[in-house]
C-alpha cells in the first residue's frame, strides 16, 4: 500500500510560508486508480509531488503528516534509498511531454539510463529492454527510435516515450499528473487507452491528478475531490458521478460545457479558488456556495475517511442534492 496520512504542506512566499495542503489522507492500492480532482491552486499537484518529495527543491515544506510506502516513511528516507523508490517503485508521468525529455540526448540514451539505474543490466540488455518497452507503449521500430532525438518526435510520441520511461523498472505505483492535457484531442484518447491497458496488465496502483472529470470517468476506480488544500469529497467513481454530494463537486461537474444546451447559460461557479494563506475559517468553499449560511463559517466536518465509502465534508450534505437541483 502507498498511503498519505494527514499530510500538510506549506509553500514559501515573501512574507513567510503559506499553508497550501491541509490534512490530506489518501491510499493507493495495487491495481487501483485513484483520481485526484480539482482546479488549479487546490493543492492536488503539490500533494502528488510530495509522495516522491519532489517539491523540496522549491522550498515546499511538510508541516505534518507522513507518506508511507509499505509502512516505510518516505520522508524519513535517506537520499540513496529515496532514489531507488523514485522511478523504481513509484514512477511519475508529467504533463509536459515537450519539456520532460532532455533535447541533447537520444531517446535511447535517456531510456537506457533509467533502466540501468534501477535494474542490473549491461548496455545490450538495457537496449533490448528499451525496445520492448517502446513496443509496450505502442511505438514500432524501437531500434530506429532509440537513435532519434526528442525534437523529431510529435507530442503524442514523446508522451509515449515518457510512459515507457516510467515503466522501465516495473514500478508498483504510478503518479500521472495531467498526462493528456498538453496533447491533441485525438491523441488524448489513445494515451488514455494506453494508460488503462498498462495499468491493468501490470496491476499497478495509479494516482491520476487531473482537473478533467472526463479523464476520471475514463480511468478512475475511486475519486478524491480537492478544494483549497482540503479533500472535500471522496468515494467510488460511480457514486461520485451519480450522487455528487459536496456543492463544489456538483458545481464542477455541471459547469462543463457539454452538459447543457447551446442556448442555456452554464451554471458557472462565481468567484475563484482562494489563494493559499487566504483560506477562510470553516468551509473553504462557503464564499462561492449557494447553500452557505452561518453554520458553514463556523466549522467544516472532519474528513471521515473509510475505504470504499462515499463521504463529503459539508454541513448541509443531507440537503445538497435536493437544494442544488434548483440551481442547475
Amino acid at each position, binding site marked *: 500500500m502507498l498511503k498519505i496520512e494527514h499530510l500538510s504542506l506549506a509553500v514559501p512566499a515573501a512574507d513567510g510560508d503559506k499553508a497550501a495542503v491541509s490534512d490530506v489522507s489518501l491510499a493507493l492500492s495495487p491495481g487501483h486508480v485513484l483520481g485526484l480532482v480539482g*482546479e*488549479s491552486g487546490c493543492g492536488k499537484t503539490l500533494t502528488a509531488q510530495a509522495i516522491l518529495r519532489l517539491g523540496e527543491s522549491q522550498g515546499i515544506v511538510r508541516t505534518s503528516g507522513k507518506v508511507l510506502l509499505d509502512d516505510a516513511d518516505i520522508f524519513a528516507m535517506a537520499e540513496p534509498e529515496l532514489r531507488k523508490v523514485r522511478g523504481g517503485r513509484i514512477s511519475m508521468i508529467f504533463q509536459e511531454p515537450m519539456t520532460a525529455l532532455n533535447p541533447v540526448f537520444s531517446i535511447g540514451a535517456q531510456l537506457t539510463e533509467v533502466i540501468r539505474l534501477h535494474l542490473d543490466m549491461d548496455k545490450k540488455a538495457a537496449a533490448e529492454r528499451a525496445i520492448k518497452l517502446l*513496443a509496450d507503449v*505502442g*511505438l*514500432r521500430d524501437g531500434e530506429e527510435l532509440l537513435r532519434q532525438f526528442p525534437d523529431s518526435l*510529435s*507530442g*503524442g*510520441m514523446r508522451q509515449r516515450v515518457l510512459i515507457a520511461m516510467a515503466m522501465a523498472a516495473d514500478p508498483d505505483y504510478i503518479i500521472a499528473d495531467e498526462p493528456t492535457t498538453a496533447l*491533441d*484531442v*485525438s*491523441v*488524448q*484518447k*489513445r494515451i*488514455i*487507452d*494506453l494508460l*488503462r*491497458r498498462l495499468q491493468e496488465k501490470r496491476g499497478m496502483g495509479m494516482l491520476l491528478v487531473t*482537473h*478533467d472529470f*472526463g*479523464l*476520471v*470517468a*475514463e480511468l*478512475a476506480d475511486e475519486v478524491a475531490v480537492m478544494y483549497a488544500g482540503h479533500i472535500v469529497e471522496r468515494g467510488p*467513481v*460511480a457514486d461520485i*458521478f451519480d450522487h455528487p454530494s459536496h456543492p463544489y463537486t456538483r*458545481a*464542477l461537474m455541471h*459547469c*462543463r*460545457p*457539454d*452538459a*447543457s444546451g*447551446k442556448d442555456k*447559460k*452554464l*451554471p*458557472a*461557479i*462565481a468567484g*475563484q*479558488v482562494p489563494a493559499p494563506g487566504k483560506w477562510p475559517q470553516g468551509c473553504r468553499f462557503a464564499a462561492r456556495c449557494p447553500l452557505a449560511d452561518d453554520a458553514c463559517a463556523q466549522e467544516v466536518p472532519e474528513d471521515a475517511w473509510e475505504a470504499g465509502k462515499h463521504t463529503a465534508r459539508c454541513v448541509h450534505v443531507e440537503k445538497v442534492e435536493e437544494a442544488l437541483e434548483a440551481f442547475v
Partner: protein
Amino acid sequence: MSLLKVEALSKAFASGGMWSGKRKVTYAVNNVSFEVARGETLAIVGESGSGKSTTARLVMRLLEADAGTISLLGEDVSQLKGKALRNKRRHMQMVFQDPFASLNPRMKIADSVGEGLRVHASHLSRAERHQRVVDILGQCGMDESVMQRYPHQFSGGQRQRIGIARALAVSPELLVLDEPVSALDVSVQAQILNLLRDLQQEHQLAYLFISHDLSVVRHVADRVAVMFAGYIVEQGDVDDVYANAKHPYTRELLDARPVDHPGQRHADGDEIVRSDEGVAESGCRFRLRCPFAQADCACFDGRLSDAEHGVACLHPL
C-alpha cells in the same frame, strides 16, 4: 450580406534552407473559405498545426495572406494598408488565449482598455472615454476599482475579462477569439463562456471562435468548420456536424472525447498504433491516418463540397 466573407484564403510558410539547402514550403492555410453573419458564431476546430490560429491571424490582417480575399461589411480589406486598414480594425477585434501575454504589463487597466478609443474615437473627450471604459468593464463584470491596477494583480479569468473589455471598447461588430478559454479552469471557463454569450446577445456580435475543444465548440457555435492540415475538411451547422459527421477526421475527433460517465467506458484495443499523427504531403492530407482511405485519395484536391453541410472527402461517411 455576411459581415465577414473569406474566400480562397491561402498562406504558406517556408522552413529550412539557410544551411541545409533544402527549402520546404508548408501550406498552413489552403484555399479556405467561410462566412460569418452578424450575431452568429462560427467556430473553427482542429488540432495544433491545423492552421486554425493562422486563419484567425490572416482575418485580422496580423499576417499577410498569399492569396484570397477577406471582405468585411462587403468591402475587400485584404489589400488595405496604413490608415485605411486601421479604420477597418475598429470593426474587428481579437481576443487571445493568454490575456497576460497580450496586456502590456506596465499599463494600467484603464489605459489598456481605453487605448483603442484614443485611436478610433479621438473625437470623444477624456471624460467621455473614461466613462466608456467604466461602462465596458462593467459589462464584462469588473468594477471601477480595477482601473488603476496592473495586469499582474489579476487572476486568469479576470485578465480574460479585461482582454474582452479591451476588444469591445471600440464597439466592433466582429470578435476573433483565439482559444479564449483554453487556459482557464472549468469553473472560470463557464463564467467567460456565459459572458461571451451575454455580450453577443446584447451587441449582436459576430464571433469567429478558434478552439481545439469540441465540448466548448458544441456549446458556443452556430456553425463549425473543422480544419486539418490547412484545409477545411467539413463545415456546417454545429448540431448537424456533431450528429452526422461526414469526414472521417471529424468522426475521429468526436470519438476521441472522453466519456461523460464511468458506466460508458469502452476498451478499444490500442495495441499498436497505426499512426497517432502524420500528414500526407499530397492528395487528401488525412489519408495516412484514415481507416477508410483508398487509392484515389492520393489524387484528391481537398475541395469542400458545395452544400449547406460541406465535406472534403471522396468517400464521406
